[in-house]
């Protein structure tokens, strides 16, 4: 994707980066950092010890100003596979706007950011980062 495909991005006085959702989907995000939650609970189930492994991840664009998004994730296991899934709502510096450049609001923005995160292929990168960072 060339820089011509990325729409111009500006930052407002309130700190929000404003753009339309379609434009956001065109902005490549790169992995910034990921980590484990230190206070993750441990609980027992049917005599087995289960550790709920949760963490956070941060992604950023290479644009100026930058788009920043972070979200929480949890590690789960099913049918012999371990997989990483998003937990809760993303956090960002984004306020999405409609075709009239009007804010669509925090709640609608958050809903669409969930869609954007779930379209992103982030799980492998996060697992690799966690394995590297916490390798013994």
């Amino acid at each position: 994707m060339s820089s011509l495909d990325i729409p111009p991005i500006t930052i407002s006085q309130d700190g929000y980066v404003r753009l339309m959702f379609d434009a956001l989907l065109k902005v490549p995000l790169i992995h910034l950092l990921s980590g484990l939650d230190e206070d993750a609970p441990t609980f027992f189930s049917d005599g087995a010890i289960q550790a709920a492994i949760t963490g956070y991840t941060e992604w950023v664009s290479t644009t100026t100003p930058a788009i920043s998004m972070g979200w929480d994730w949890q590690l789960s296991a099913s049918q012999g596979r371990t997989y990483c899934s998003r937990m809760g709502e993303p956090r960002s510096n984004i306020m999405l706007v409609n075709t009239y450049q009007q804010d669509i609001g925090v709640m609608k923005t958050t809903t669409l950011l969930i869609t954007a995160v779930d379209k992103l292929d982030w799980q492998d990168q996060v697992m690799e980062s966690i394995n590297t960072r916490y390798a013994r």
Partner: protein
Amino acid sequence: MQIVSGTPRNFPVGFYSKVAQYRHKVFVELLGWKLKTREEGFEQDQFDGPDTVYIVSQDESGSVAGCARLLPTTQPYLLKEVFPQLLNGMVPPETSDVWELSRFAAVNFNEPHTSALGQFSSKVTIQLLNAAIAYAAARGAKRLITVSPLGVERLLHRLGHHAHRAGPPMIIDGHPIFACWIEIKPEIDTGTVLG
């Protein structure tokens, strides 16, 4: 728990020293921040002065169990002077309706806690944060800006605050930190914190 708000000029003798010692225990000893300290066991920087505002939580024994620092952005403040790179290219605000919240901690050393991050889940956190917001709002603030560890944004959302990051987090001295806006709700109760 009792909340004390004000400046060192108005504090009882010895009170500010207790706050500086508490901050050293939290930020230097517990969290491992590399801060310059003016005296052994006291955490104090160039933004601490006789007119700096502090919001302090004391437990029943009178020990400090939490603290926060407030600075109007019309004077030098931490984010502008030390961490402007966290603002994503934006000019640091210098306006009477934006205050900076910094050195926020809610660790009660008289009670057991599981980790440094456990400080962010207590009743003291909620009281201290609400008191800081109310104090600033009573003096014209419409927004707060804060330099914080990543977990703070999640906490603020969980507590129902309209908070959003000012830009991407950055690793500084080994810790990921970011600048966060806290929008003050117009209906905030400021009636009990003047003085």
